[in-house]
């Protein structure tokens, strides 16, 4: 029983942050048809900046809870600055190109950003445990858990609801749906598609940065840690269906729980199980579990 609870809690917190990161990836793919490898960079920069700010302010004597104000700052700064630079300088010139070539370009951006991170933040790991300490621990079913990991799930839920509400209940959401379904019609109707692309890219980047910024206090932020996240969120997005928000949710929960099961029961299978599921889903349902049906174009 304890094991089941441990698996469930671990899986849930892992799924939560995977969801936050993946939903950004999937939104960008859904609207712009770009599979953005550089999404891992937003995650990494978000984590680094938030860890850096938290340790900085904590050294200056600010209380532990102050970190919660710094996480959104890191998210917004990274999301805005990096994404606008990347969209305006690189992606904007590539929209007419082949999808796979754009993936390669974002891979190039990802590599560049990995080294820039090292140059800016150095090679030493950051430990920004203060926000975690501020919330303390709680006992659940005989297991001591930190409250912070649970707030992660709450945050994921807020993100999910916000995305759903934003896309279906607001004017912006409707404009975005137009662009998703037919970019040309949107242009003909006088929509500023370029602006919508930029906005979507910024939102996607902020979600990636938010995932990193919020997870930073629970891990040691060290070089190269964005590499794993980007392939894992690829798996999530592919399993759920590229471009589908409910798909990202289901995919994240599946990957999270499966990985937690593997970690607790058979640690050898930790990575294997995730990508085996990804391969099986792609074989059985190439468009993913939740992708909207599409007419075949010849």
């Amino acid at each position, binding site marked *: 029983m304890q094991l089941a609870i441990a698996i469930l809690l671990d899986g849930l917190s892992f799924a939560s942050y995977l969801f936050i990161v993946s939903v950004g990836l999937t939104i960008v793919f859904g609207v712009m048809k770009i599979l953005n490898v550089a999404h891992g960079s937003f995650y990494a920069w978000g984590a680094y900046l938030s860890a850096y700010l938290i340790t900085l302010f904590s050294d200056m004597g600010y209380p532990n809870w102050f970190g919660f104000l710094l996480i959104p700052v890191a998210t917004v700064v990274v999301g805005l600055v990096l994404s606008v630079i990347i969209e305006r300088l690189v992606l904007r010139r590539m929209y007419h190109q082949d999808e*796979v070539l754009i993936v390669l370009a974002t891979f190039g951006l990802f*590599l560049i950003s*990995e080294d820039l991170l090292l140059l800016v933040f150095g090679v030493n790991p950051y430990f920004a445990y203060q926000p975690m300490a501020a919330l303390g621990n709680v006992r659940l079913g005989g297991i001591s858990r930190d409250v912070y990991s649970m707030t992660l799930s709450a945050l994921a839920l807020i993100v999910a609801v916000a995305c759903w509400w934003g896309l279906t209940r607001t004017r912006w959401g409707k404009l975005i749906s137009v662009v998703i379904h037919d970019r040309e019609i949107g242009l003909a109707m006088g929509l500023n598609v370029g602006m919508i692309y930029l906005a979507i890219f910024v939102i996607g980047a902020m979600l990636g940065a938010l995932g990193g910024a919020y997870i930073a206090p629970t891990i040691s932020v060290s070089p190269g840690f964005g590499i794993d996240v980007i392939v894992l969120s690829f*798996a999530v997005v592919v399993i759920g269906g590229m471009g589908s928000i409910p798909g990202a949710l289901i995919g994240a929960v599946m990957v999270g729980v499966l990985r937690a099961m593997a970690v607790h029961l058979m640690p050898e299978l930790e*990575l*294997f199980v*995730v990508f085996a599921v990804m391969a099986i889903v792609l074989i059985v349902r*190439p468009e993913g579990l939740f992708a909207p049906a599409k007419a075949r174009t010849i």
Partner: protein
Amino acid sequence: MLDILKTDKTIRWAALAFLALALSGLVIDAWILNNLMFGLARGLAVLGLLVLWRTGLISFGHALYFGIGAYTVALLDTFAGVTDLVLRLGVAVAASAAIGFLLGFILRKYRGIFFAMLSLAFSMVLYGILVKIEALGSTDGFSVSATTIFGWKPETKFPLFCAIVATAVVAIVCVQFYLRTTLGHLTTAIRDNELRVEYLGYSVAKAIHIKYVISAALTGAAGAMLATALGQVDPDSMVNWTISGELVFITIMAGPGNVVAPFIGGIVFEFLRTYAFEWAPQAWQLIVGGALLAIIFFLPRGIWSIFEKLMARIKGSQG
């Protein structure tokens, strides 16, 4: 086939160039020799990717076959004591071709981003197994003992270098020959219009399947050669997805123009890396990423297109 050997300009020039390269192995420094070996080995894998790229498919998971090739050599060495180069290469190629043949039944139905993603998933499955299982070396991998050639134990690296050069030439001739067959001519046809190819009476799925197996076998050979030349295999530098990305990077850098281009690309890549580690050890990924973007924007047909332009200019001035 003999006919093509006589008439094909690419093969004639490539054979000459590689002969010169092999002879130069007698005089150049050891580090240059090593770099050339690594570069040519990588070039084999890039040649495999080129075959696929010409049909418009880019695999983001060819580290799978790279890893299979390398680990075949390592496992044969560790558990069976096999050191013979031909045996190593043969088993590695057979193993990668067999896996490629099986996965090909699935992959041949996919195009574009889905093809790339599914290849990625397969390669990460292998990575996940290798990293976590102690018996397969885990993250440390294996060391590979020095190779023998038909029972002879060479004292320098030069014979191995010659063997790699020879393999490269054989691969170039075979691929060039293949591209000149009807099936080979379908390569670009499929990229341009699949439906028309089907109407002409050819099976697109079968053609892609064959290309995939060829590409897997070449990449397996590359992995085996690199493992032998390097004397070391480990998952992070052989099987991880960033390695697939690296191979795709070299493919883009080399350009699709010619079957010799991948080897030039591979060698350029190795020297780029050596100098980058010497002058700017912190900025290796920055250089690769920057070069990738620069090539996509300014040199979409790769390094080879520079040669093409030069040749055209020379011919133009003569005429």
